[in-house]
């Protein structure tokens, strides 16, 4: 298990876990979200290949009402 930060909250995940794995674990609809890893965008097509490392800072965002 490794420790990362997701949207500001500490969290432990499987070593070698991918971004896609993380989203599935979080139960997030992949279609509605975008992911940043250490301030860099992770394009959807790379979610499966992008392996998380200890201390990674992940942001998962979606769209909300705004003006």
């Amino acid at each position, binding site marked *: 298990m490794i420790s990362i930060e997701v949207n500001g909250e500490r969290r432990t995940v499987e070593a070698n876990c991918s971004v896609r794995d993380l989203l599935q674990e979080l139960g997030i609809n992949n279609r509605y*979200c975008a992911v940043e890893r250490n301030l860099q965008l992770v394009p959807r097509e790379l979610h499966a290949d992008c392996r998380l490392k200890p201390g990674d800072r992940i942001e998962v965002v979606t769209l909300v009402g705004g*003006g």
Partner: protein
Amino acid sequence: MTTAIANPSADSDIVIGSHVLKSRLIVGTGKYATFEQMQECLEVSGADVITVAVRRERLVDADGRNILDFIDLDRYTILPNTAGCFSADDAVRVARLGREILRGLENPGSDWVKLEVLGDTKTLLPDPVATIDACRQLVDDGFQVLCYTSDDPITARRLKEAGATSVMPAGSPIGSGQGILNPNNIRICMEYLKQDDADYPVIVDAGVGTASDVSFAMELGCDGVLLNTAIASAKNPHLMADAMRQACIAGRQAWLAGRIPRKLYATASSPLDGTIS
């Protein structure tokens, strides 16, 4: 002819970069009591473009509903904003995240962004320097950038120079409902932005409180109006949405029609000759 005129579709489209739109009213999706209410008001407003914000997904969610379940992605072009950003870098990050989501949704809105870089959490007024900086970065990154800014004419000019696809001066502070406080500045912005470029789109963004504010903005010759709170926070949002829809068309038509000049007083609308004596 009359019927053609009575039909707003008789008006030319508004062109914002690669986007060609019928409606000159752009509405936000925030502050509604329910997603259903939002959905209905968007429909009544007649808008072709709607703005959304980009936020952290709540990891645990009350009922798991997402705003996107209530937006017809085939009908609306989504304009993602960078609301809540107080630095150029954050705005650039948020713009890219928004683009990534819209690409996944295959919505035409994936190539543009409403740039908002704020200078103060209390007034939510825009930061001129950071907005110009972020605009440059986003233009370099291939975005069509619609810049929310104050009504400062030189800042407006700099934003266009930085490659902004549209400059969107605020009539008054976001959500203040004060309408256009300084028409003189908007007029100078128009002079700058449309010089030798009459079709450059200038959109009044923020401050609108009621229907006459929208008409007034359009009567200044602005190409469109962007609003959110005025509808979402009205006592009856549906009714206000319809008011805004028509006020935008009315103001646009009045501008095109060419209003009568202002005078200190009076010219008779009934003939003065032929009166009995």
